[in-house]
């Protein structure tokens, strides 16, 4: 399956791009994807030490245990200040 990932604002500084599509194994979870991204972009770990990374799945907060589906839109965002994002 393929998922589209958007890196917003300061997060894009760490990945060097604002979006990309990735092919994942069927049954992958959001946590699996985040681990893959940390491997691909080690600087994400540096960033996570500086401020909490927020992750949305199709515009909503999602647990790392949630299973991804083909066509999902994932976004990695830095905090605003309230940190409430559900859209």
């Amino acid at each position: 399956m393929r998922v589209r990932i958007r890196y917003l604002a300061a997060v894009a500084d760490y990945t060097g791009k604002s979006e990309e599509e990735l092919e994942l194994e069927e049954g992958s979870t959001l946590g699996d994807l985040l681990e893959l991204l940390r491997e691909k972009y080690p600087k994400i770990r540096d960033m996570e030490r500086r401020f909490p990374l927020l992750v949305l799945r199709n515009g909503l907060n999602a647990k790392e245990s949630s299973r991804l589906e083909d066509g999902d839109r994932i976004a990695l965002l830095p905090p605003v200040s309230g940190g409430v994002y559900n859209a």
Partner: protein
Amino acid sequence: MPEGKAVKEELSIDEVVEDLSRYAEEGMGAIVIFIGFVKGDVDGKRVDSLDYEVYEPYTTRHLQRIAEEEMEERVYDIRVFHRYGSLKPGDKTLYIFVAGRGRKVAFEKARRVLERVKHEPPIFKLETREDGQYWVFGDGRRIRRELNGSDKVE
């Protein structure tokens, strides 16, 4: 009808006021307007530009939700428009219109809507000024942008 939206272009304030004026016949007594601007000076440093990044359609969806959730009996309408893109000092960034029964409820509601808009939706600011670039968070905290990923907290 309450409306919240991320917009690229400058807004015609007159058109919105004209549209909201029709509520006067139903008992509306006041429209409070808040307009935010890009500041040309921050901490004594010259600001060259302020870039707003949004995450559509979620930013608009969130602004719309704020406008709808803040409606109440003595409030006739709420309109919220947040601009995105690269803006210069003096450019308008945020418009909030509240049509209320009277001035008190309209001012209070406008203040509340403003606080929510500042803190909740996914809107990000990158300030370019004479001493570098800074990511600006909703509470005014700034993180110096270093493209090698070693940001320095100011």
